[in-house]
């Protein structure tokens, strides 16, 4: 079977994530032109192997040859990536949920350089053959799991790959959609016979029809061969059993087939859960549609259906997590009420995703939950110990949950749900992704709970063999319960061979045929290959278009950016005033003569000062200064007028509040000036001298650019750089890191797009948005604030363009080396707000700063853009006079972009 040249060969491949070994010295040849299955539960290394094979993840140890070249060579990878297609695990993981089917396909088509007509032809052909044509305009986020996977397949096939890599394409998809998916693959393979397909799957029954299988466990290969070879070798009837038989002895120990003792009779009247016409609507969408249920105490009740059919929502309604739109539900005869804390103690709930605290150890999690459920403090150690023993967590008790295999984590979740001895367990897909042995042991635990402890268990699953173990099951589709009965009874009523076939029958009756496959000609194999170019405008454009579409679909973000900046401009323009005015002062006049009052009057006439009630004594003076009620206190001594008349020297005391140095400095200037003025006036008045005689020289002060020394014309140009720095940077920072968190970054890893195309493409829409922002701010400045543009508008616009290219670039930079959105957000805030507000010359000129702040001010582009905005708005300048400020800006753009490109990785590490 493996005589032909292999499509890929692995020699001694190893991979570690920190201390965890994901792949352990794997050597393997994968035959070409076949359907190869990678078999095994979650966490055995299937996904890691596929990621290495597709080039998405960097190779750590060993060698991988694929499609005739070494995958460690970046050159080879970029040559063959248009021939490889990789569909990662997770429903629609590499798709864009806010974009429609059509837009997603167009995006991928552009990435591979197809012209418009070619894209149209391919999209039409692919969507026709997958039955997606009627839904082209629907956003991906609103598709069912099966449709998402079909679309994922279309996107993977759009460029005629020679090697198609599918990572668990049918996990979480209902049986009907699953059958359709495999038919589609078979059809495509019959038309493109040269194509090799590698599929990872956790469903052993699917693997029956594959050409060649690789069974994996704990990062190693257990066995390879055709399905029949594997069955013969292990002497088993099903692949599930064969897989267990192939496992090493120590893993199989203690495993035995799960048996379900019948439910004790006579418990029909004892009802644990009852639901009447339970309905849940989200807007127009009916998630749960008139569901009726009645579950007896001690029963194991199964809920079967595809992802998104309403199983989880029904469970949340029953736990009181969500209030129902209509209908009623009762637990133990009491109406479910989200506010009723008492019934919650009788229920244990295990949600679909692992939702324990990954920051707490296994024991801490158990103790925390026991306490929150108010298990008496003295019982807690014993209770936790019991759970640890019963659920086999002894070895893991001090470990952090993230370091544990999924099977053990799910046991922990079950232990946590059981820690307060609930009478009812609601379990949402507890065995999803767990290996067959761990699944069986989990089931044994649940059966013991149900039969021995009389705990009612309400469980959802998409494994048919698990559905067969329940006392009764409900089949659910599109929010409605299709049928409820014992599994064997359903098979009998339908006259089907298996429960799965019976389910498909019910689904077809319910009208799920709508998305069925209609055979259509697939894409011809003689498509033009794309040329390799170092920078492809069309690929960058593809990302730019996509980003722009996503921005349009999230109008809240764009409008916050536009309206928010406008609002901030108004607030700051009026709010931040650099004039120091309306300063409070008061006088302690111990003299109370005409002359002393004349001195005090001198101050009160000033527009800078506002007089407060006179100070009564020293204590009053101190108290009011301390309370911040006075910026200035004047003390005129006893005998002031008398001493002045006699020509004795007198001292007037002035106390200035130094808490705000800028304000104090200004006050000092004002007071000294006014004191001088008063002296002069006195001299003229008493001695009859004229001003010229007393002043040997005078100073004519010209306040340039802003003759009235008003705050607004000075502030408006100063605010623009700050806003045009922070907002665009924040927008782009989250745009890249979000792809990392959500998984669509994989498209960068496995398609021909280069790092610079990716970054510049993503940046473009934000530059446009920021320029729109700039236009809005400029308009506001001219109209609302009445600050005219005296200089060259062209120079201002050019400066703004350079500057927003920098600020969007800074956001990209912040998100290239961070892993989480929150970290990127912090880096952006710290990297923009402090330099912009403090070191860019907004309040103090850069030349006056000291130390690190001075250096930041000189290097950081915000200060240079500030020179440009002030130059154009206030000083009537153009390009020629501002040249010196354009150069640093023009230099900063390529620097920040190069840094981002260098820090971004083309492969996951």
């Amino acid at each position, binding site marked *: 079977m493996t005589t032909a040249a292999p499509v890929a060969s692995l020699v001694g491949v190893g991979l570690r994530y920190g201390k965890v070994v994901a792949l352990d010295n794997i050597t393997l040849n994968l035959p070409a032109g076949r359907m190869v299955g990678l078999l095994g539960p979650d966490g055995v290394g299937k996904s890691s192997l596929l990621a290495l094979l597709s080039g998405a993840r960097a190779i750590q140890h060993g060698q991988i040859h694929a499609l005739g070249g070494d995958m460690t060579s970046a050159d080879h990878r970029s040559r063959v990536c248009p021939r490889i297609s990789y569909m990662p695990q997770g429903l629609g993981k590499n798709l864009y949920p806010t974009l429609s089917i059509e837009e997603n396909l167009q995006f991928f088509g552009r990435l591979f350089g197809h012209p418009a007509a070619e894209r149209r032809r391919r999209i039409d052909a692919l969507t026709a053959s997958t039955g997606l044509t009627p839904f082209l305009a629907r956003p991906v986020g609103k598709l069912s799991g099966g449709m998402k996977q079909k679309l994922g397949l279309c996107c993977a096939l759009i460029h005629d790959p020679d090697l198609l890599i599918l990572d668990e394409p049918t996990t979480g998809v209902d049986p009907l959609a699953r059958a359709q998916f495999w038919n589609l693959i078979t059809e495509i393979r019959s038309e493109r016979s040269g194509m090799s397909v590698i599929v990872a799957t956790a469903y052993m029954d699917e693997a029956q029809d594959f050409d060649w299988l690789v069974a994996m466990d704990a990062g190693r290969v257990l066995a390879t061969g055709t399905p029949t070879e594997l069955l013969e070798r292990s002497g088993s009837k099903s692949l599930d059993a064969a897989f267990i038989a192939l496992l090493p002895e120590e893993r199989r120990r203690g495993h035995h087939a799960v048996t379900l003792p019948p439910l004790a009779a006579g418990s029909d009247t004892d009802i644990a859960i009852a639901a009447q016409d339970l309905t849940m609507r989200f807007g127009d969408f009916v998630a749960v549609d008139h569901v009726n249920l009645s579950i007896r105490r001690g029963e194991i009740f199964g809920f079967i259906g595809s992802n998104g059919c309403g199983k989880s929502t029904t469970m949340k309604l029953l736990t009181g997590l969500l209030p129902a739109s209509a209908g009623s539900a009762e637990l133990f005869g009491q109406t479910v009420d989200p506010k009723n804390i008492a019934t919650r103690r009788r229920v244990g*709930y295990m949600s679909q995703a692992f939702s324990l605290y990954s920051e707490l150890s296994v024991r801490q999690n158990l103790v925390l939950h026991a306490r929150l459920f108010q298990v008496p403090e003295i019982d807690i150690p014993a209770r936790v110990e019991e759970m640890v023993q019963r659920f086999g967590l002894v070895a893991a008790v001090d470990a952090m949950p993230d370091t544990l295999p999924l099977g053990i984590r799910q046991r922990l979740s079950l232990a946590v749900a059981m820690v307060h001895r609930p009478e009812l367990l609601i379990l949402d897909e507890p065995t999803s992704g767990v290996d067959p042995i761990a699944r069986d042991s989990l089931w044994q635990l649940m059966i013991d709970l149900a039969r021995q402890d009389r705990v009612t268990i309400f469980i959802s699953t998409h494994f048919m063999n698990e559905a067969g173990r329940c006392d009764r099951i409900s089949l659910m589709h599109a929010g409605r319960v299709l049928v409820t009965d014992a599994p064997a009874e359903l098979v009998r009523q339908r006259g089907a061979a298996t429960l799965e076939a019976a389910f498909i029958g019910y689904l077809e009756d319910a009208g799920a045929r709508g998305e069925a496959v209609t055979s259509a000609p697939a894409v011809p194999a003689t498509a033009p290959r794309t040329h390799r170019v170092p920078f492809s405008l069309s690929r960058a454009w593809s990302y730019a278009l996509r980003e722009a579409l996503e921005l349009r679909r999230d109008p809240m973000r764009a409008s916050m950016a536009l309206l928010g900046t406008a609002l901030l401009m108004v607030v700051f323009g009026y709010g931040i005033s650099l004039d120091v005015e309306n300063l409070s002062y008061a006088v302690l006049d111990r003299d109370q003569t005409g002359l002393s009052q004349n001195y005090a009057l001198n101050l009160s006439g000033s527009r800078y000062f506002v007089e407060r009630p006179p100070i009564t004594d020293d204590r009053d003076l101190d108290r009011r200064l301390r309370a911040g009620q006075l910026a200035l206190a004047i003390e005129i001594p006893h005998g002031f007028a008398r001493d002045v008349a006699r020509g004795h020297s007198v001292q007037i005391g002035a106390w200035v509040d130094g808490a705000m140095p800028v304000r104090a400095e200004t006050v000092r200037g004002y007071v000294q000036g006014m004191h001088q003025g008063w002296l002069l006036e006195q001299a003229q008045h008493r001695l009859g001298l004229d001003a010229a005689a007393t002043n040997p020289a*005078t100073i004519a002060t010209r306040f340039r650019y802003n003759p009235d020394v008003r705050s607004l014309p000075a502030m408006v140009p100063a605010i623009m750089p700050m806003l045009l720095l922070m907002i665009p940077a924040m927008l782009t920072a989250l745009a890249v890191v979000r792809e990392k968190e959500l998984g669509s970054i994989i498209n960068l890893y496995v398609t021909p797009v280069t790092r610079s195309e990716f970054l510049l493409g993503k940046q473009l829409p934000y530059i446009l948005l920021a320029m729109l922002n700039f236009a809005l701010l400029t308009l506001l400045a001219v109209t609302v604030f009445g600050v005219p543009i005296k200089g060259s508008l062209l120079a201002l616009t050019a400066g703004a363009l350079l500057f927003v290219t920098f600020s969007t670039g800074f956001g990209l930079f912040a998100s290239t080396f961070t892993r989480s959105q929150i970290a990127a957000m912090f880096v952006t805030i710290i990297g923009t707000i402090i330099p912009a507000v403090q070191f860019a010359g907004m309040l103090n000129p850069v030349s006056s*700063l000291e130390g690190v702040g001075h250096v930041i001010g000189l290097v950081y582009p915000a200060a240079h853009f500030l020179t440009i905005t002030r130059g154009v708005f206030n000083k009537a300048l153009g390009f020629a006079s501002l040249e010196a400020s354009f150069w640093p800006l023009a230099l900063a753009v390529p620097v920040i972009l190069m840094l981002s490109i260098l820090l971004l990785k083309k492969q996951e590490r």
Partner: protein
Amino acid sequence: MAHLANLYRLGIKELWSLARDPAMLVLIAYTFTVSIYVAATAMPETLHKAPLAIVDEDGSPLSARIVSAFYPPRFDPPAMIALAGIDAGMDAGVFTFVLDIPPDFQRDVLAGRSPVIQLNVDATRMSQAFTGSSFVQQMVLGEVGEFVQGYRGSAPVPVELALRIRFNPNLEQSWFGALMEIINNVTLLSIILTGAALIREREHGTIEHLLAMPVTPAEIMLAKVWSMGLVVLLAAGVALVFVVQGVLRIPIEGSVALFLVAAALHLFATTSLGIFMATLARSMPQFGMLAVLILLPLQLLSGNSTPRESMPELVQDVMLAAPTTHFVTAAQAILYRGAGLDVVWSSFLALAVIGAVFFTIALIRFRRTISAMV
């Protein structure tokens, strides 16, 4: 009783989450040490290294005497330029001040003709322009006066002005800069820490888990408020004692304990605000935008960068609803002026009221949106 126990346990859980998140710890450490140090040492005195140029068209001993009056740290050594260089230098923002001493200045002074010196000021640099111009005037007139009288020292002025600066005698900006940076960072961190903690719980699905337990939304919220508040409070206290008093050697006049009480009241309001914002934002990107839009005015209009009394009445009144305004008022009074509770009680009361209102609004909103988070 059970409520208090739940509050305590949920809060401890928040602290564990934070303790195992190294990125956040680094960030908190950075904002309360390095960031404060940089802000304190970079802040210039109002008149510090002010860039000044002089056009000396006279070339006399008197003009030389004027030139020599300007020296660091208040002024950069003056640049001697030609008359034609004034516009270029000021346009490019190289000089804030240009002094033009006219020809025959000394002769005219001695002849009692009271000649005019022109002082050009770049009025777009408001803060420097204001204090600087009056300072330059005094310096020049002082030099001329002394020259005329032929001896150094003050002329017999009958009335002397004894000007004393209270609370910060040398008007050192670093005193102001360091403490204001602490206040800013308390606000920034408390809002982002609580908001992000809630969004993270939502993204990880653990909020759903909590809600299935006998725990009320008020407990979940209060637990975040006290735990994150405590972290920020401790960090602020450490920064005040070790960075501000220790490394920067800035004397603190008032009671650090009283300041921490003010900070605790302030944190009650800001952590509630953080939770409120997290219920408004549907995703982390939206929260990020919201945070920028709310933090900037909170910080810049609180009276922390520019004096409150100089702002328009409307802004002053609106900002009375912001906790930062009262926190800044109280903090300045306590830390710089050594004020006691008898002076700052009104700010404390305002903080408590604002905190209670914010908390109530956030709780109502949290209860209402909590089902949508599941």
